């Protein structure tokens, strides 16, 4: 049995009296593309920040390739939620990509030509090298998302955590980002992606984690996108998701049809 890339055990994280995460356990094998779904405030960003080691859990632990989080130092890359970034910060696209290399260079040394080359290469992969000298606030939503993707790639980490990379991007960017995610996965890396669109969740991810403070389901999309579970988690907002559920049902009916044909 190979060691899991991410192993989360009995995680409880709280900001106040109400825990943001409660007894969360799951593990992700290497080379998997996992989607995290759940309504607003369900603790998705908190989970990401805890895996990164930014938040300290009250209970439980996170291991990345067997190492506790305070030991991983830079082997986990991260793409923040759009709303968490100060887009007015005086920093250019290239400088953001370079930040991916900061973890590899001790503070008393300056960045090497290889670091610059790695940042440049990452920008090329997300097709942002033309805009490398722009300040990050002067980009479209999709371009902004790609800059942070580049930063994560420049880090060369084995594990990537992305917080809502598809929020506020157009369809073309969405598919471009998806391509990058799949390439990264094909290179053997492990990705955990917070996702808000249930309609595409089954298509994009190998596994889904349905989260609302607790883990409601974790596994193949088909096992997770069940009407009863989604009703429980997205109470009262189900009307919006009727399409998703029906889409799932239709697929099942399609499968049965095939079987009957045979």
């Amino acid at each position, binding site marked *: 049995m190979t060691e899991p890339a991410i192993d989360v055990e009995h995680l409880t994280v709280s900001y106040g009296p109400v825990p943001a995460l409660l007894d969360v356990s799951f593990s992700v094998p290497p080379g998997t593309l996992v989607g995290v779904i759940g309504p607003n405030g369900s603790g998705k960003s908190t989970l990401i920040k805890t895996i990164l*080691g*930014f938040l300290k859990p009250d209970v439980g632990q996170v291991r990345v390739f067997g190492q506790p989080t305070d030991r991983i*130092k830079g082997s986990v890359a991260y793409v923040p939620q759009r709303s968490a*970034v100060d887009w007015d910060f*005086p920093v250019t696209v290239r400088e953001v990509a370079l930040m991916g290399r*900061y973890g590899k260079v001790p*503070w008393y040394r300056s960045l090497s030509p290889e670091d610059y080359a790695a940042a440049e290469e990452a920008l090329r992969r997300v097709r942002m090298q033309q805009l490398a000298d722009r300040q990050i606030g002067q980009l479209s939503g999709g371009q902004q998302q790609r800059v942070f993707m580049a930063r994560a790639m420049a880090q060369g980490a084995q594990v990537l955590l992305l917080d809502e990379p598809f929020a506020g991007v157009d369809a073309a960017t969405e598919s471009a980002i998806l391509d990058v995610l799949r390439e990264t996965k094909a290179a053997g890396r492990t990705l955990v992606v917070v996702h808000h669109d249930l309609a595409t969740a089954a298509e994009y991810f190998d596994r889904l984690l349905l989260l609302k403070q607790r883990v409601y389901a974790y596994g193949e999309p088909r096992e997770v996108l069940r009407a009863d579970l989604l009703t429980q988690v997205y109470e009262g907002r189900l009307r919006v998701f009727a399409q998703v559920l*029906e889409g799932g*049902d239709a697929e099942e009916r399609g499968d049965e049809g095939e079987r009957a044909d045979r």
Partner: protein
Amino acid sequence: MIDWLTELQRSNPHLIKALLVGTLVSTACGVTGCWIILRRMAFLADALAHAMLAGVVAGFLVMKLLFASQSYAPAMLIGSVFAALFTVVVVGWVSRVSRIKEDTVIGITYTGVFALGGVLLSFFSRHVHIDVVHFLTGQLLAVRMADLWAMAFVTVFVLSVYILFYRSLQLVAFDRVLAASIGIPVLAFDYLLTACTSFVVVSGVNVVGVILVVGLLIIPAATAYLLCDRLPRMLALSALFGWTSFIVGYLWAEAVNVAPGSAVVVTGAAQFFVVLLIAPRYGVLADWLRRRRMIPQMLIEDVLRSVLKSRQDTISLAQLVTLMGGSVDRLTQAVKQLIREGLLVRDGENVRLTDQGRDYAMRLQRAHRLWETYLASVGTPQRELHDRADAMEHVHDEQAVDYLDDRLGHPLHDPHGSEIPEDFVHLVPGAVVPLAMLREGHRGEVVRLENESLESDFALGMLLTVKARSRDGHQWNVELPDGRVLGLSHQEADRVWVKLRVE
């Protein structure tokens, strides 16, 4: 000029010292200010400045009582840094353990510590001879050698910190989560930055006094922020602005004989407002010019709808001008932009809607007519209806429009009797929607029933054909596969979910 300076030098033997101290302090303040505004700590800097009074007095007392040394600058410096750090720790602690928000805690703590300084000062008034007026307005005119050395030390210290730890400071300011994940001790850097801020605040107090030192910290940094998109440039420019506001302020203060500290900050503020006005990208003028050149979305949308109203979706520019009025120039620009966005195409002399443009225009039409119906239903006077709807059609967010549609009972016509376009965003083949959204002629398969009483008439998988509505559009009529026609209320029709058939 030179004459005037020599003259000044003769009349004021402190001139060179004052200029040197001012240069050091304004540079250190300018650079530190950048970190402060990028980390949104401006209020904290103000708090530190006030808290220092207690520290200065304590430092003075310690030296005086233990070593019998009169106003020894380094001791007062260390005392104030302690007071500042104490304030920061208390602020952090109180906002963690209570529900009081940080800005309130800062307000409480710094006034408290400032007042404590006042109490100490008056209680030990026999021992302490600190000129409170100087503390409030600076003592540039009486700078001592010890002060000069203290300033030099502070400036060199903070600049070295910023240079050595540039990457870490930048990352902690920009993305704490990434910083922490690569092993940068973010909390330690918070305290380091606070310590540096206290140092420069303490040193700045000597120049401009406790009330104005925040100005010297924040104003040059904010001025530079308006001009720069890169942090290294912002740091350099901010130091420069700090220096120019000091030099210019100090010299004119000498010339017209006013308080130099105030003159320095007034100069800085003037500098800021000039830059705010004329900055090439983030300035007020630039913004105004940009906005003038920009075609508002509303004009664009009005043009689209005018083209939709014309025959065969095509219209000449001249017709457009007579139809819409307003400036020909701006209409031409709006049309150009629509062509660029692929919503209109040129067709000889005319412009025509593309499929995408037609969709957009129809969405606007739907929003317009639904708003008009809605406005009428909430009692808007008839003669205002059209103009109000014209303004409201630009609120065409899908969810908002869906809400109106549902609330009005999915009306077919607006108050003038024009047909309201159907919801073609959601009514696409294969979509699952409530029956109530369908129009005459639509066909769909029942996929869900939200009400058990409906199960006597409908079954899952049943194919329905929608007939014309009756009772003023309040009754939905559907034909079942066996030819029966059932009448449903809006509520019932909302509870039958169908999957739209591909026709």
